[in-house]
Every structure is written in C-alpha cells, then in structure tokens.
C-alpha cells in the first residue's frame, strides 16, 4: 500500500528537483528526470498487485486508489510510452531552452495519467484529470507560438470537458453521497431515467474532448503540432487514451445497463466513423508532417471510439488493441518527426527529401509504424483493423464499415506521403550534411517497432490483458474466446492464423529478394537519384526534381465537393461562433499559468470548505 505513496512522492519530488537541478548541472538534470520517470515505472510494475487498494481520507472525504486489470492496461500504455518518451526526450531536449520547464511538465503529465488510472474515486480522478490538462497545456505553449489560437483553444475545450465532468460528479455525489466509482455504478441502476441519460452524457463530453472526437476535435491538430515532439508522442499516444479509458469505463459500466444505451453507442460509433473519415481527408491535405500526424491521430482515435462504442466483445477488443497499437505507432512517428526536426530544422514535406540514406534507422522505425498505421499485415495494426471490421460486420453496421473502410484506404495516401516526403525522392544537396539522430532518440523508436512486429504475429500477448480488463469491468463475455496467442476469430467462427502467414511472407520475400539480386549484390551498383531517365537531360546538382508540392492533388480534386461543401463551412461557422466565446474566455483565461492554478485552487478550497452545505 505504501507503493502508491512512494510512486507519487517520487514523481512529485522528482519533478521539483529536476526543475531546480537545471540551475546546477545539465547532466544531473537529465539523470534526475530519467530517474523520476523510470523508478516509479519499475516500482509500479514490480510492487503493485491487482485488487490491492489504498483507501485514505482527505479532509473527511474518503478516497480510494487501486488497480484492476483494466486500469493496469492503461497504466502499461502510460508508463511504457512514458519511459520510452523520457529516454527519447533526453536526446531531443539536448541544447534546447527551458529544459526544466519541459521536464517538470513531462513528469507531471505521466504522474497525472497514472493517477487517473489508479483513481477509484471521482475526486482524485478529477484532480488528476485537471493536472493532466494543465501540464499538457503548458507543453502546448512551450514553443511560444500561436498561444492565442492554439493554446487557448485547447484550454477552452478542456475546460468545457472538465466542467461537464464536474457537473456529473456533483450530481452523482448528491445521490450517492460518496465519491467512489464503485458506488456510482451500484447506484446507477436505481436512478431516474433522466439522470441515467444525463450522467453518461456529461462524462462522455469530458472524455470525447480528450479523445478528440468529431465535433470537439478542433483543438487537436494545433495542440499536437505545437507541443515539442518528445511530448507529443506521449500526448497523442497516451494522453488522448485517457479519453478512451473513461469512455470505456462509462460505456461498459453505466450505458450497457440502460435499455436506451444502444442510442449512445450508435451515435458514438457514427461520430467515431465520421471522425476517422474527416480526419483522414484533412491529413491527406497537410504539407507539414506534424499537422499530418495530428489529423491522423484524430482519425485513428475515431477508429478506436467506433470500436469501443459498438460494444460487442470483438469491438471492445479491437478498440482497446488499436489503442495500444496507436500508442506504439503514433508515439514512434512523432518521435521520428522530432528526430527529423532536430536534424534538419524543418518538418515540411516540400522542403525535405531523400533522408533514407542519411537516417536509415529513423526510416526503418517510420516504415514499421506506417505499415502498422495503415493496417497492413504482418504488423500489429492489421490485427486491430481486422477485428474492427469483423466486429462491425457481425454487429450489423453495414454502412459504418464502408465509411471506416473508406477512411482506412484513403489513409494509405497520407501514409505514403509521409514516407515519400521525408525519406524517399530525390536526394538534395541541401540535406547532404544530415546525420542520423543520437542513439537515445533512435533506440526507443526501434524498440517500439519491434513491439509492433511482435504484436502483429502474437497479438494474444496484449489481447489477454485486454480481455482480463474487460472481465474486471463486468463485461459479459458471450463468446468466451475470440483469440488465441496468434489466432484471431470473429463471432461467426472465421479466423486468421497469423503465424504461418508471417513465415510465408518472410520466406517469399527473401526468396524473391535473392532472385532479384541473384547475380550478386556486387553486380548492381548504386547510382544517385540524379541518374534517372529524364529524356536524356542531365540534371544539375542543384536542380530539384522532387515531386512534393500538391502531392495528393488528384485525389483531393476528386473529393473536393465533400471537403468544400461540408467541412470547410462547418469549420468556418464553428470558428466564427467560437470567436465570440474566445473573446470572453480570454478575460478569464489570461494565458498565464498561475492564474489558472489560482482559479482551481480557490474552487477546490470552496468545495472542501462548504461541502456539507453544498451536498
């Protein structure tokens, strides 16, 4: 039981110490930072056992921290990705300004996310939720650009979500008189229908904001691309999963008991599908890698939401498996972009080309994660996509499956755009000096690629904890067994056996690779990308032949009516409506972190002081 206290003490102490250690020594600061992320991770996975809970009380409110199989899954995402991103951040932050600020917020983010998953009561859940929001907000404005547009937008949406959740918590407390989530679930069945509908809606709004679901996603592209990349890999990979965490919690424990819950599910599933499609289309349009990945994150979370919203066992498995996979591949991709940004100074596809020979390891990691993102076998993304489709088809969502399929096929375009824009194409003289990123940045990426590869063939490794978690939530397992270690089934008994497929692919690949270069590798000689058929013309050294401007124009022309008629109008109208709101919000949210802290502290104090009167 002491473990929790130690973990959080190390986090908090480490954060503060790291912040001040920067004044003394940069290397000491790095070591402290690594320690304060890695040591709690080690302690958590070695010292905390399932079912253990730590009840304690604060100002007369009894709180409960504990862990079950379900929250353990998300703790795995948070701490796993957090540790790797921390290792990466050491290399990424080398020589940058305000390291202390970054490290401080990074540790706080990891701590708050761990806090969210271990909280078994609503108060600590809410407090950690707010800490997470602040720390991520401070990261979004780290670069100091677009604070007004991006930072405020992010904070306003987070605030909307947080206050919706707070209202939900207050309502729940007024009925149950405790803050335990367990009690809320118990009491839910006896509430009036109106409350039964409103409580999930309030909570789902909060979670949908963090998961960047369709009407509430406008903050995501700016925020993801504005934060430092070392943090964005955590931001997109783990922090957005907190929305999914809460969503599954609400959907499984509350909504599934409601006869009308089917409508929640349907609406959520369709919103997820639309999010996926729209996010994909907008990702295709981007010329900046950060923006592209940000929209892609929105789209990927759309798949996850669709999966968990359908609510069949296969759908849940698919959604949560995709959540794990998304943490892996999107974390890797953002890290790769960060590495490229550090080495070249830009992330624009129209500027960079032909890095493959200069940054081979980054390319390898990006390639693996892109294959996983596109959902192509034999990598892990395929397993999630397969289960998602099967769950949609077997649960009678015929048009939704078409929408999802459209999104994921169109996704190939931006997948290829990412790889081609950065790594392939003409090698330019301008980028001749570029070298591979330092080992601390490359090793986490490669590690995650290996995980993706392993999960592609042995998805059972992660499906087992997911299944255990769903059982812990009280999920009714109607089919008993939809997966084995390397076999996945659907409800109709159709299956994909992954192991022989992997072996066949590798065997065929090697065979034909050897055939192609059969006469010996020495026989074929490397020639530069200037030596191509250009109707006999000899390109000059500084002549740029790369095709990167308007890369996906043919496709965008085909979907132009969709993008113009609906999305554009929607965005402008929405932005116009929000502008007035922002004007008002700006007076409250001054853009100064201390002011926000003050607001919330004051609020919590008021709640604590007048809790007897209020509730």
């Amino acid at each position, binding site marked *: 039981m002491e473990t929790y206290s130690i973990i959080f003490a190390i986090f908090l102490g480490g954060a503060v110490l790291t912040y001040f250690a920067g004044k003394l020594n940069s290397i000491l600061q790095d070591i402290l930072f690594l320690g304060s992320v890695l040591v709690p991770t080690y302690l958590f996975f070695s010292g905390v056992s399932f079912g253990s809970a730590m009840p304690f009380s604060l100002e007369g409110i009894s709180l409960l921290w504990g862990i079950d199989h379900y929250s353990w899954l998300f703790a795995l995402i948070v701490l796993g990705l957090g540790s790797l991103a921390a290792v990466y951040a050491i290399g990424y932050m080398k020589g940058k300004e305000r390291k202390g600020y970054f490290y401080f917020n990074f540790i706080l983010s990891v701590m708050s996310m761990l806090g969210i998953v271990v909280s078994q009561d609503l108060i600590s859940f809410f407090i950690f939720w707010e800490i997470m929001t602040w720390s991520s907000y401070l990261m979004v404005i780290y670069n100091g650009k677009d604070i007004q547009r991006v930072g405020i937008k992010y904070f306003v949406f987070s605030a909307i979500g947080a206050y919706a959740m707070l209202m939900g918590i207050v309502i729940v407390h007024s009925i149950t008189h405790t803050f335990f989530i367990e009690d809320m679930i118990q009491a839910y069945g006896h509430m009036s229908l109106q409350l039964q509908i409103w409580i999930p809606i309030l909570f789902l709004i909060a979670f949908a904001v963090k998961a960047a679901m369709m009407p509430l996603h406008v903050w995501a592209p700016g925020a993801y691309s504005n934060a430092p990349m070392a943090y964005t890999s955590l931001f997109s990979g783990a922090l957005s999963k907190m929305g999914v965490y809460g969503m599954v919690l609400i959907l499984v424990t509350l909504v599934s008991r409601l006869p009308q819950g089917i409508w929640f599910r349907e609406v959520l599933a369709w919103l997820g599908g639309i999010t996926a499609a729209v996010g994909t289309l907008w990702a295709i349009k981007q010329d900046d890698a950060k923006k592209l990945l940000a929209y892609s994150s929105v789209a990927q979370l759309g798949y996850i939401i669709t999966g968990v919203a359908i609510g069949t066992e296969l759908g849940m498995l698919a959604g949560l498996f995709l959540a794990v996979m998304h943490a892996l591949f999107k974390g890797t991709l953002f890290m790769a972009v960060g590495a490229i940004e550090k080495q070249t100074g830009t992330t624009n596809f129209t500027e960079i080309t032909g890095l493959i020979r200069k940054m081979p390891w980054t390319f390898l990691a990006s390639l693996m994660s892109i294959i996983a993102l596109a959902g192509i076998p034999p990598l892990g993304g395929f397993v999630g996509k397969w289960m998602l489709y099967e769950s949609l088809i077997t649960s009678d969502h015929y048009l939704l499956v078409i929408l999802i399929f459209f999104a994921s096929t169109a996704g190939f375009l931006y997948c290829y755009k990412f790889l081609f824009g950065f790594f392939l194409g003409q090698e330019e003289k301008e980028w001749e000096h570029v070298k591979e990123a330092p080992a601390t940045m490359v090793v986490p990426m490669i590690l995650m690629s290996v995980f993706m590869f392993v999960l592609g063939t042995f998805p059972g490794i992660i499906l087992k904890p997911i299944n255990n978690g769903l059982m812990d939530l009280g999920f009714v397992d109607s089919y008993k067994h939809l997966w084995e270690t390397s076999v996945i089934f659907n409800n109709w008994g159709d299956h994909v056996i992954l192991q022989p497929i992997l072996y066949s692919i590798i065997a065929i690949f090697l065979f034909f690779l050897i055939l192609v270069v059969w006469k010996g590798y020495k026989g074929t000689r490397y020639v530069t990308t200037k*030596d191509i*058929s250009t*109707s*006999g013309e000899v390109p000059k050294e500084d002549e740029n032949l790369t095709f990167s401007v308007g890369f996906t124009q043919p496709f965008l022309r085909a979907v132009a009516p969709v993008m113009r008629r609906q999305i554009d109008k929607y965005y402008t109208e929405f932005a116009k409506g929000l502008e007035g709101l922002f004007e008002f919000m700006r007076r409250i949210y001054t853009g100064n972190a201390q002011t926000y802290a003050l607001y919330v502290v004051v609020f919590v104090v008021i709640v604590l002081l007048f809790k007897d009167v209020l509730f």
Partner: protein
Amino acid sequence: MVNDKHSQKIVDFIQNWSRKHSIWVLAYGTGCGAIEIPPTMTSRYDAERLGVRGAATPRQADVLMITGYLTVKTLKRVIRVYEQMQDPKYVIGFGSCTINGGMYYDSYNTINVLDKYLPVDVYINGCMPRPEAVLSGFAQLQKRIAEGRADGATQYKENLEWYRANQKRIIPNWVMPEYNW
C-alpha cells in the same frame, strides 16, 4: 553448368532467340523520321507481330532508334540515353541523315555520320525510309542478334576512348557522368 562450353552455347542460343523476338524500342523521336514509327507500329504494318514494342524509359528498352537528323544538342541527350540503357542494347540508324548527313550534310548543327559517336548495329536507308524499310531493318537486326553479331554495345565499351574523343570534339562543354556500366 554454365561453364560447360556446350551448355553455354545452348544458353546463348536461347537468350539470343528471346532477344531477337522481343525488341523494345525506346520511344525517343529525335528527328523527322519519328513520324514513320506510328504507321510501322499500328494496324497497317503492325511491327508488334515481330515482337517489336515501345518502351517508355531507357532502363526498359533494348533498341535506341535514331530517327533522322541529329543535332548537336540532341546528340548530347542521345548519348546520355544510350548510356542509361542496360545491356544488351542496340542502335538503329534511321534514314540517310544518320549515314552521311543526308540533306543536312552542310548544316552547321547536325552531325553527319552517326557511328562516329554511337555504335550503330543496323542502318536503314532512305529519306524517309518507308515502314516496309523499317520492318526490313528490324528483320536485319533480328538476324544479327540471332547470329550474335549485334555487338555494338561491346564495341562501344571496348573503344570507349575513341567514341568519347569524337563526342567531346563536338560537345565542348562536357558535363555528363562517366559511362561505367
């Protein structure tokens, strides 16, 4: 197996046979003769029945056809294209201009004799040669390939210095990568 003399003969025979019946011509019209290629390829004369087919890029092509006069400016590109082609490769000189300059014998910017700059395997006479003549040129090339006598590329490699000197003589500003495959 390949080292054996007799089997090498058989392999050569099969290879030459397949090369003979599959001639991919680079679609690179250098001069006015290019207009004779479409009738050769299409319904009336149908060169495809001999296995002649257009190829889009030098990497895929077997035959480089110099269709008519060749200006100094184009020669530079043609040399580049020829060097980008992969072995085995053949050159067909098309029309009188490639033989002795033809009607442009005294022009200040068209070359007179093609095989000083590129190894020509087959010349097709005429100004312009009609499609029948072009087909007969292809037939001649096929014959030479089958007999193993279409060795222009080898000659080019062996006498590279001579060819290079000739090329450099009329292309003073030589910025091309060196030929080494």
